[in-house]
């Protein structure tokens, strides 16, 4: 008896591509209309940010263009340094990002075990995985650079063909860091456990981004928009640029953009081809073993010597809190987010310091507005950490639902866990920013009391709305945060912050500026307290009731 071997499948690359196309289609055109709400919100936000970027860089380039007392060569040199810096930062970011994303797409992705069983040559799978890594790792940087270069070409009235040159340049420029990152992650996985690598790389990525945020802020890029004179501008550009090396892809890219230097473009192209060849060689040698290694490191390979210990008796609340803390601290992505949070605080305080306001009354006004800004920072943080806290129960929701545990207890336990660190964070933010602004102690105390109320309200609002509109199907907290519930939470918290500021203008004015007291002030304060209690408690209660009614499908 003979066995017929089907060979047609080996050529079924089109079917393989169709699989990706269909997935993308269902992602872009979901059945439920409400998925479009956050998408529209994000698109509007992105359009707004890109417009600001375009206008901001245009202003810088216009200033450069108008420098009459500098020769064209010096202006070109300054431009090249400036563009080189932007390209260097972008290159590093794409490189770091591709290591983290490459780990998921090449090794941890759930669909890999299916894809590797298909009658498709491995190099084709890896090629598509590389494209996937490239898109995920650099779409944001590509958008930023495209807007930056469009602003440059538009300001200097360069020929239209330069747009096409820059578009090609951006593709060539961003391919090499992704190739290098993917090659590095393949080698790392071959020799170290995948989960450990993921934790370390995520942490390093967090440190890198946090350091970059602080470094960029300390360069004071806003001064470029309003320089005192030409010397000041030249000094700023020089201060911003590192002692750059001439043999870096970022330098080549800046030379292609500015002078249309094709020879440097060919350098860049050859370098990119070199990195792609390197990636192909690394994957040829290491990928198969590395993939097997990554799968094996997911399960237990040898019998560990589990030690027995006495069970500690804990109550419901202590058990819930302990569980939540353990899960939070064991998730490496949360650590990197915390690092970014720390960097955000530093940047925030630098911003306050850079204001350097002389007039006392203006400092007081800034201090008052600062309450709203600190509240805004808190809202942004809580949508990332607090709002997804109910959804993060994810597929384990069946367990919570079948336990002898009221949802009110569950939500208040989460409140107990998150409120103290968020309160401490906002108190420190407001205290230090007020110290920098040198406002009187009474005003500092008033501000801290105020931000206590804001923290109390926004914590309840975030957990409550998170329970009202949970998403148990997504694992990643940042995806949960950008859903319809997250958008709704942000809108409500903005409205709350605005109303709180408006209500308190009058009493603060009387107490701090006029130094007088009258009954009406207390009515305003009472209104603020009642509003805070409503914003904190009502969503929590509604959320608990909604969860109790919710069916597990």
């Amino acid at each position: 008896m003979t066995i017929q071997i089907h060979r047609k499948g080996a050529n079924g690359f089109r079917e393989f591509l169709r699989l990706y196309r269909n997935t993308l289609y269902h992602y872009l055109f979901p059945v439920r209309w409400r998925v479009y709400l956050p998408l529209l919100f994000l698109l509007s936000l992105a359009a707004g940010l890109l417009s600001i970027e375009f206008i901001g860089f245009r202003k810088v380039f216009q200033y450069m263009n108008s420098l009459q007392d500098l020769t064209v060569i010096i202006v070109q040199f300054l431009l090249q340094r400036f563009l080189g810096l932007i390209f260097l930062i972008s290159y590093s970011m794409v490189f770091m990002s591709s290591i983290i994303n490459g780990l998921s797409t090449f090794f941890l992705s759930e669909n890999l075990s299916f894809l590797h069983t298909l009658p498709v040559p491995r190099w084709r799978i890896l090629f598509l995985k590389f494209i996937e890594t490239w898109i995920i790792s650099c779409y944001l940087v590509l958008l930023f650079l495209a807007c930056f270069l469009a602003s440059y070409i538009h300001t200097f009235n360069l020929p239209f063909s330069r747009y096409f040159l820059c578009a090609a340049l951006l593709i060539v420029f961003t391919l090499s860091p992704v190739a290098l990152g993917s090659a590095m992650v393949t080698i790392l996985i071959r020799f170290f456990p995948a989960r450990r690598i993921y934790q370390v790389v995520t942490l390093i990525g967090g440190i890198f981004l946090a350091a970059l945020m602080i470094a960029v802020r300390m360069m004071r890029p806003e001064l470029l928009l309003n320089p005192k004179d030409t010397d000041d501008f030249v000094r700023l550009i020089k201060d911003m640029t590192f002692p750059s090396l001439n043999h870096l892809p970022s330098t080549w890219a800046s030379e292609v953009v500015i002078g249309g230097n094709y020879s440097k473009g060919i350098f860049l192209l050859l370098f990119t081809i070199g990195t792609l060849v390197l990636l192909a060689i690394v994957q040829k040698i290491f990928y198969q073993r590395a993939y097997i290694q990554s799968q094996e490191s997911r399960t237990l390979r040898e019998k560990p010597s589990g030690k027995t210990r006495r069970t500690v008796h804990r109550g419901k609340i202590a058990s819930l809190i302990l569980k939540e803390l353990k899960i939070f601290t064991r998730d490496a992505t949360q650590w990197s987010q915390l690092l970014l949070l720390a960097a955000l605080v530093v940047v925030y305080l630098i911003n306050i310091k850079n204001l350097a306001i002389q007039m006392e009354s203006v400092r007081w006004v800034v201090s008052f507005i600062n309450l709203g800004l600190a509240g805004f920072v808190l809202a942004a943080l809580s949508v990332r950490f607090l709002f997804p806290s109910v959804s993060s129960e994810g597929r384990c929701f069946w367990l919570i639902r079948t336990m002898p545990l009221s949802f009110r207890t569950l939500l208040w336990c989460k409140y107990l866990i998150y409120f103290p660190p968020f309160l401490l964070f906002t108190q420190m933010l407001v205290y230090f920013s007020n110290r920098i602004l040198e406002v009187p102690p009474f005003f500092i105390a008033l501000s801290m009391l105020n931000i206590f109320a804001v923290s109390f309200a926004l914590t309840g609002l975030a957990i409550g709305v998170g329970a009202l509109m949970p998403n148990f199907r997504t694992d990643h907290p940042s995806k949960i945060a950008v859903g319809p519930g997250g958008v709704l939470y942000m809108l409500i918290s903005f409205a709350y912050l605005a109303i709180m500021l408006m209500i308190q203008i009058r009493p603060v004015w009387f107490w701090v500026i006029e130094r007088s007291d009258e009954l009406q002030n207390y009515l305003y304060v009472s209104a603020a307290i009642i509003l805070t209690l409503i914003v904190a408690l009502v969503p929590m209660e509604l959320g608990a009731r909604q969860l109790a009614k919710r069916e597990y499908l």
Partner: protein
Amino acid sequence: MTVEAIQFLNVTKKYGEFAAVRDLSLKVSPGEIFGFVGPNGAGKTTTIRMMTGLATPSSGSLTILGMKYRDDNLQIKQNLGYIPDRPYLYEKLTGREYLEFIYGIYSMNGNTEGVDHYLSMFDLVPWSGELIESYSHGMKQRLAFSAALLHEPKVLVVDEPMVGLDPKGVRLIKELFRDLARKNVAIFVSTHNLEMAEQVCHNIGIIHEGQLLVCDTIDGLRKQASLPDSRLEDIFLRLTNEEIR
């Protein structure tokens, strides 16, 4: 008067216009092992979800130990153990931490040896300090069993108990069911494993397209299907095929 452990009375569950379970009436007494079998999509999981409080009946009455979910929600949950077919557990906890969490939530007093007892019974002691994310499906299933039994429930609801278990695990579960039944625990088992149902269950219900076709002992089912001395598999196919025709 003896209170039934589980009692469905004319229960219907609808999702929109679609009735997943129709007019279901059945009883499971304390100490009884009840096997619930049916083809895919017959309504087994929906029935289980209603019993565990994960779904609410659209009409009819469901009582667990004489209590209704609407009135005695927490009291029912305190006395009910549930093992789902796909054991999604907290992956970032170790096996021991997971059981200690369950132990704390059920506020068990005194019986601090329970965690070690079940870890030992299900051969999980050597891995009890490892994160659940590194467990195989079978190990997760064994941990889910440990967690469901830790608070000594009076009613145990199990969805596909044998999925992912090795032969030793299967034998252990069969023995465990018999032992629990002797201790007056009511066990409701939904399964595709007809051999196991035949060996272990006192009564068996066959559900098809949301309706309970028959509910009897294995001998009673043989009579109803007019298939003396035949196995449950034949009875099941005869009854469900007749319905399909």
